């Protein structure tokens, strides 16, 4: 049977849409390389790995920025993972139907909440409270940023995790119950391991969101490019890579050393999230093949 014109057009459209996504990623990467790579010729590597970031005097040490992004992202994970996975388990496994149908859309609504509003709440409420409750020198710290970022990453972790738990076949749970397992044993030993790859995907997507988040972080972390002197660094101001790009890109002269260096930070940021994603993919892949072997 000959395909109708409409069908041909739709097939074409879908194919173009698919290729264009790949092409856009490729173009972004090429653009980043073209704009960022000149830095390596203009700034000595010893400066780039230095510990002082003060671009108007030619100091482009990126270590404090890497450290800042690392600290808030790990902090956000410590907030979002237990809370998010717990919430996902509650919604999928424990909550009665009416609570589930209320909670799920509410949490997805939270995902659409503009981060600049969260940042504003962070400045006006969270920072002053942390300052007076914890007795900090200032409320604008890595800890404040991690709390907010955890909050921002939470809906992603919950939503994707809950979908994964929901996709675990009923028969798994029934089999566990039939063997005499309690609800808790079923959740912890059967359902959660079966949904592990999906839950992990949710966690990593959430971390990606935290790593790339800019506005809220710029508003509440104080943006001081410092290196840690100890564990108390979590309660000190830090400066992330994203906040640096956002704060400085607006006024930088195009084509200057500073301009190229900001794009170089962009490359580092891009590679960091790529590595996180690849690592996650390999973990997920390995676990799935092992699981499949056991089942077959």
């Amino acid at each position, binding site marked *: 049977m000959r395909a109708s014109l409409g069908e041909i057009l739709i097939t074409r459209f879908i194919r173009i849409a698919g290729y264009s996504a790949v092409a856009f990623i490729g173009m972004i990467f090429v653009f980043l390389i073209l704009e960022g790579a000149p830095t390596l010729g203009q700034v000595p590597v010893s400066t780039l790995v230095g510990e002082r970031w003060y*671009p108007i005097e030619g100091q482009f040490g990126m270590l404090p920025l890497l450290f800042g992004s690392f600290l808030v992202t790990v902090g956000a994970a410590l907030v979002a993972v237990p809370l998010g996975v717990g919430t996902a388990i509650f919604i999928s496994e424990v909550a009665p139907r009416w609570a589930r149908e209320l909670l799920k859309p509410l949490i997805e609504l939270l995902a659409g909440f503009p981060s600049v509003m969260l940042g504003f709440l962070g400045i006006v409420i969270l920072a002053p409270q942390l300052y007076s409750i914890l007795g900090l020198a200032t409320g604008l710290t890595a800890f404040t940023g991690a709390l907010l970022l955890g909050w921002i990453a939470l809906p992603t972790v919950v939503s994707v995790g809950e979908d994964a738990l929901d996709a675990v076949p009923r028969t798994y749970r029934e089999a566990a119950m039939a063997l005499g397992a309690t609800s808790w044993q079923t959740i912890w030993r059967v359902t959660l391991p079966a949904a592990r790859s999906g839950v992990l995907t949710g966690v990593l997507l959430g971390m990606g969101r935290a790593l790339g988040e800019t506005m809220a972080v710029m508003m509440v972390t104080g*943006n*001081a*490019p410092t290196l840690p002197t100890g564990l108390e660094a979590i309660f000190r101001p830090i400066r992330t890579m994203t906040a640096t790009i956002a*704060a400085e890109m607006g006024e930088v002269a195009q084509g200057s050393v500073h301009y190229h260096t900001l794009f170089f930070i962009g490359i580092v940021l891009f590679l960091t999230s790529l590595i996180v994603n690849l690592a996650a993919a390999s973990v997920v892949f390995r676990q799935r093949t092992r699981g499949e072997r056991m089942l077959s």
Partner: protein
Amino acid sequence: MVNLALAWAEAYQTIHPESRLSVTGGGSGTGIAALINGTVDIANASRQINPEEVADAKANGITPVEFVVARDAIAIIVNPGNPVDHLTLQQISDMYSGRIGRWTEVGGEDRPIVRLSRETNSGTHVYFLERVLRLSDPDNETFFSADTLLLPSSEGITSEIRYNRNAIGYDGLGYVTDEVKVVPVSEGPDGPFVLPSAESVTDNRYPVARDLYMYTAGEPSGGILEYLLWILGPEGQSLVSQLGFVPVEGEP
């Protein structure tokens, strides 16, 4: 200063619909470079033109003519609960560079000093670095302490100082609100300690104030002269006050 230039251009165009003005931002260096290249009639700058730039302009057959069109004061602000009631420029420099770490060393409470600054892309940041941290000495290489908080907006500085008794910050006089305390400042070690105000800036008693300039290519004439006279006249200068800058007095 781009806000001021935009406000002037907008107001002038409503009075003189036949005039055509367009304003572009990008920093003082950008404006002066455009004047040297002959692509603009007027360059706005929050710093004075330097000798190399004058030489470049003359090489292109352009003689820059300078007009001081407004003045700007930077206020030193702390939390209203902070008992410190005067500071010298040297003390402020030492606080921001990290040589002084606690308020007791400048006569305050036993608290750590939390330094607040605008982001490095702000003209105010650069001015503060040169005028206060380096005390206008070109050979001085003092830096901001690395743990200085760089906040993206004036509002960010105000909202931090509002609750934080450890904090010290600076901001254009026009942005200062009742929720923060302005500290009197002196140039030398023994005073006099002066609060920023239109009066103390006009008679040069307040030390952290700067002129804002307009440069024209050659002596202005025709429409450009009319525009400059309007800016320096009562209407132009009332806009200066409205935007929180300090007006200049007298005729050009």
